[in-house]
């Protein structure tokens, strides 16, 4: 309990500091344009008025926190969730392909890891490629996958979630290989003295030992999965989702919309990572892990 309280005060202080910095930056960044406007309108506002104006431009260079918050609130809670302008709608579109891709990616990653741990030829031929493939900017193929699939008539959730699958299976595969190999020699020897069969060794030792690794890599995978879904929405064609909202807002310089779409994406990411973390902790707890 103490440790949590130790953190809350500094975290809140720093967040408050960031909001202050944000306001200052908003005033400074929006000031040139506002001065220009005032000069053309022939107005000479005093400092307070000027600052207030910089913080309430319709298309500011840097929207103020309250403008983003207002826009976010309006588009999240006041719109019908089926509306094209509702952030909940866009978040849901992105979330659904993220989750589908994440589920497939995790399953694929686990299957590959099991294969690598049990088949030596796979281990020595596939593992180096999996590690090498982590060094490749895979996200670059996102637009191509979407467009190519659209060319053969497959649109919507499948191509987007395919990219999420692709991004999320690497961390899971690598984490699970580590996890399935994590049992100590002593535990392996113990199972050997019991003359345990390969499947008993797998289910009673390797699988439970790999669970913490699985959840740690799933946290990374779910975040990567969301990034994949957002980027997959960037190429023209996607009409819904956080990514397409970002792109549309950037075309029309609707900065406030852009920021609130970004906030929506961040909230989805935070929720997903927290949920996976919670699930991991629940499973850990039910497996008797020492409470942290």
């Amino acid at each position: 309990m103490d440790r949590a309280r130790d953190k809350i005060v500094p975290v809140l202080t720093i967040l408050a500091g960031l909001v202050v910095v944000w306001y200052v930056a908003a005033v400074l960044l929006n000031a040139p344009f506002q001065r220009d406007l005032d000069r053309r309108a022939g107005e000479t506002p005093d400092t307070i008025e000027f600052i207030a104006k910089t913080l309430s431009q319709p298309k500011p260079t840097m929207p103020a926190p309250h403008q983003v918050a207002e826009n976010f609130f309006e588009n999240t809670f006041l719109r019908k969730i089926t509306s094209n302008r509702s952030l909940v709608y866009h978040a849901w579109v992105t979330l659904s392909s993220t989750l589908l891709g994440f589920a497939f990616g995790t399953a694929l990653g686990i299957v590959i890891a099991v294969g690598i741990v049990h088949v030596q030829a796979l281990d020595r031929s596939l593992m180096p490629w999996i590690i090498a493939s982590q060094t490749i900017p895979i996200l670059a193929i996102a637009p191509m996958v979407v467009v190519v699939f659209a060319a053969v008539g497959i649109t919507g959730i499948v191509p987007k979630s395919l990219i999420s699958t692709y991004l999320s299976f690497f961390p899971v595969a690598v984490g699970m290989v580590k996890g399935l190999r994590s049992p100590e020699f002593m535990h392996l020897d113990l199972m050997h003295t019991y003359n345990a069969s390969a499947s008993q060794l797998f289910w009673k030792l390797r699988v439970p030992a790999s669970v913490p690794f699985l959840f740690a890599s799933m946290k990374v995978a779910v975040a990567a999965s969301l990034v994949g879904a957002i980027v997959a929405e960037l190429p023209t064609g996607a009409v819904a989702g956080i990514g397409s909202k970002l792109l549309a807002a950037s075309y029309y310089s609707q900065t406030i919309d852009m920021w609130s779409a970004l906030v929506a994406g961040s909230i989805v990411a935070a929720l997903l990572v927290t949920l996976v973390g919670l699930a991991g902790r629940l499973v850990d707890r039910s497996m008797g892990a020492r409470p942290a």
Partner: protein
Amino acid sequence: MRWFTLSWQAVAAILLCILAGLLGPMTQPEMKALANPAVTIAYPFLNTKGLIFDLILGAAAVSMLRIPPLAAVAALAIGAHVAAWLLLTGIVGFEGSAHAPYYLLLAAAWLLAWRCVTILSELKPANRAANALLRLVIPFIFGVWILIVWEAVVRGAGIPFILLPPPSAIGVRIANSLPILAADVNQTIFKSVIAGYVIGCGAGFLTAILADRVAFLGRGLLPIGNMVSALPIVGVAPIMVMWFGFGWESKAAVVAIMTFFPMLVNTVTGLAASGHMERDLMRTYASDYTQTLLKLRLPAAAPFIFNALKINSTLALIGAIVAEFFGTPVVGMGFRISTEVGRMNIDMVWAEIAVAALIGSVFYGLIALAERAATFWHPSVRGG
């Protein structure tokens, strides 16, 4: 002692060959030629069909004799790869006309390659150089076979090049567009990525040192940094493009923001990694903060810092390429990918991706080499 050892891959390869032989013609033209024996119709594998069968059957049979493993490996490698080469070159010009026997023979050759890799994986050479060679050869064969299957299936089934170009076409495209690729690499890598990477990693590192000196800051920044690392930061790309313009500066800004947080979090964790006993030892020497930092804590943090550098090398490429989707001058890898996708020049997109993959691996490899040199004492490096 028997004079042969069965292996399921070789047996399956032989069975596939027999099945292919029973099914007859390998391609549409061959079928036509057989139907009209009077007319001479040129068809693929006219002269090589028998050779392909002989190669696969021969290699499969030889590999099951009781011969030294290396001899079996040689037989399998020659049989599988020459057969694959004949299949690949034979189908050129007759794309999309392949029948089942073509794929069966391909699968048989692939099984032989698998058997070859299996034997290689079981070798335990005492010689260190031979071991290193094995570690390269085995994944290399795997990679080659991904390309072979890709090429063979795309050509055999006649998949339109617009959907999935064969690797050979991508190779040709790379060779023909070297100047464009070089200009794109120069714009994206040497301007955006390097600048952003240096700024982001440097700022993250300095902030971590600051957070380390000021405990209050450290306690607050670490949870925030951990959270932000999971956020879709690429989303700031349009904002940066708006602020810094279409040039490389906006991309460098995106890269800097993306690389900042992993560096911050890893360095802070790394600075806490030195043991209590060692820190107490430094206290007994009355060493000051800087001395302790330089002599104990930074070396102890090196593995963590290198980890961040490695993570960031991939993130930086992604950041720069994705940021270019939001607007650039008419050069850059991300720009090229998004415009060529629009024009359906998919082979050019693949060429860019291949170059990006190569550069990503080289970038990562360089950092990994630096890491081995700098943290030679760490168990993960010593264990090799």
